[in-house]
């Protein structure tokens, strides 16, 4: 697995643990919550600094499509009042967060990155995950840019403009949760939510150099969010540490009858388990289809696998075919969702999205059903692997962030279209709903991510490994140099 790296590794993580907090710029959610709980700062102060930072920096990053300033300040005052009364605070007290704009936010139309949805009436209730984070004390500060209707791996948006990579503003964030990647990677907020149908949390996490969690399918409720491909849609958090992912994930777990796919699974807090580290966990590296194919991806996989003692390869059977099946199902389910809008409002779509959806509508049903049948076969085969291993490592993206507008990239000796292929390593995994943590390997000039893939319902395994790698200094969300 040894491979040369064309880039310079820079594994020194940046933390502010010993730095007196002034505006909590680039502080983690955990640090902020601790500071608010201790009275070292107030939630109002944190939120005011956050809003100022967004106003100052977002004209460049283009990650926000709406700010919820008034609501955020009211919520912050409520958190501070709770503390003043001596009542207990939630684990995310005073932590600012933002959500991909497919989450319902009371008072805002749920854009889902589209022009058409701007005409929708404002939402009358928050998405369930927003409610759960705010119950834990977090404070919503706005809604984030995304690829139209989430059918995107680039972070580009014809209506709102491209979200910009915090490490190089001329480059893509990845998508479709591009604003989430830019806002967290750029230090605007320590925590964001996004969706992942085929890789839309893991791809921007990789390109923006941050941590992202795509939980098991059915683990987190999708109630009151705008869908894309129902049998593949997941929601999850972005953060700059594994601990922050765990804190947010723990706050969002639990059955919800408002999402038909949400499983009746017990709440299993992970944050208390993080310090167990990697001891006793069997880790392998995905081979075959997932074999790294660039200097950056090989370097990242080599570093992570060495740190975890993952010295064996494992073949995920028929992964290429699984990706194809995911491709077909996505096109078909997405087209079904938008069929009436394609009939009546086709000119108001992003042309790149419209053409894909129209083609999806024309896909013969017999082929889609065959893909769903293959999916069950593949799921059974993949689950067998977890009798021998606890986690599998694979690249998150085939390359570091392409330039905005770039149409193709080199994959080995082959030139591939960017839009359809940035998720080629992520699609075969979400296809059967496995939990994955994308961890950032800090390379210069651009970071790249590695997927830590676990068995269903074993988010704890992936998050423990992510935390262990962070502790060893192998992975880290770096403060952008620009």
């Amino acid at each position, binding site marked *: 697995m040894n491979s040369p790296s064309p880039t310079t590794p820079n594994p020194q993580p940046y933390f502010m643990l010993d730095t007196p907090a002034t505006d909590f710029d680039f502080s983690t959610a955990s640090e902020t919550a601790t500071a608010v709980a201790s009275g070292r700062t107030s939630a109002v102060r944190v939120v005011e600094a956050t809003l100022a930072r967004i106003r100052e920096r977002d004209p460049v990053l283009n990650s926000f499509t709406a700010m919820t300033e008034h609501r955020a300040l009211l919520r912050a005052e409520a958190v501070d009042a709770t503390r003043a009364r001596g009542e207990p605070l939630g684990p995310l007290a005073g932590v600012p967060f933002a959500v991909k704009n497919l989450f319902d936010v009371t008072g805002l139309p749920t854009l889902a990155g589209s022009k058409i949805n701007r005409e929708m009436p404002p939402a009358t209730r928050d998405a369930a995950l927003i409610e759960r984070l705010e119950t834990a004390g977090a404070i919503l500060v706005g809604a984030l840019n995304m690829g139209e209707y989430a059918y995107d791996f680039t972070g580009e948006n014809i209506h709102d403009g491209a979200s910009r990579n915090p490490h190089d503003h001329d480059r893509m964030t990845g998508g479709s949760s591009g604003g989430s990647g830019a806002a967290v990677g750029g230090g605007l907020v320590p925590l964001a939510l996004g969706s992942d149908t085929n890789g839309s949390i893991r791809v921007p996490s990789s390109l923006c150099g941050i941590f992202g969690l795509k939980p*098991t*399918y*059915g683990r987190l409720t999708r109630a009151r969010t705008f869908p894309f491909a129902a*049998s593949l849609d997941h929601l999850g958090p972005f953060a700059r540490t594994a601990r922050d992912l765990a804190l947010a994930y723990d706050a969002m777990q639990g059955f919800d009858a408002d999402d038909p*796919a949400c*499983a009746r699974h017990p709440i299993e807090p992970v944050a208390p388990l993080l310090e167990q580290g990697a001891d006793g966990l069997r880790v392998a590296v995905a*081979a*075959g*289809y997932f*074999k790294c*194919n660039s200097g950056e991806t090989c370097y990242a996989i080599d570093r992570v696998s060495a740190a975890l003692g993952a010295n064996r*390869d494992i*073949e995920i059977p*028929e992964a*290429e*075919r699984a*990706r*194809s*099946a995911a*491709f*077909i199902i996505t*096109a078909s389910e997405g087209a079904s969702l938008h*069929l009436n809008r*394609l*009939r009546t409002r*086709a*000119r108001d779509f992003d*042309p*790149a999205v*419209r*053409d*894909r959806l*129209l*083609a*999806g*509508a*024309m*896909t013969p049903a017999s*082929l889609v*059903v*065959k*893909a*769903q*049948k*293959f*999916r*069950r*076969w593949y*799921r059974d085969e993949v689950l067998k692997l977890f009798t021998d291993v606890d986690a599998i490592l694979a690249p998150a993206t085939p390359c570091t962030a392409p330039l905005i507008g770039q149409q193709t990239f080199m*994959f*080995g000796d*082959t*030139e*591939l279209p960017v839009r*359809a292929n940035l998720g*080629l390593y992520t699609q075969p995994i979400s296809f*059967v*709903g*496995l939990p994955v943590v994308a961890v950032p390997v800090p390379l210069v000039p651009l970071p790249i991510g590695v997927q830590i893939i676990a068995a*269903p319902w074993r988010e704890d395994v992936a998050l423990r490994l992510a935390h262990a790698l962070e502790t060893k200094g192998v992975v880290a969300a770096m403060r952008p140099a620009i």
Partner: protein
Amino acid sequence: MKRKPIRETKPHKPVPLDSLVAASAQALGLTLDPSWQAGVKFNLQLILRHAALVDEFPLPDDAEPAAVFHA
């Protein structure tokens, strides 16, 4: 282990899709601007290439679809 080729990147014999696109659009009540034809055909061809890869995989008659995955 040697990486398997990504099949969609191989040269493919173009499939004539004009009639399928036209008939599907009519059946579904979709109106296509002529300037969209090339993009729609490109994407449909890509989907059908992926579908061919899935279709060639042998499955038993009693294979159950996994329309919604329960882990």
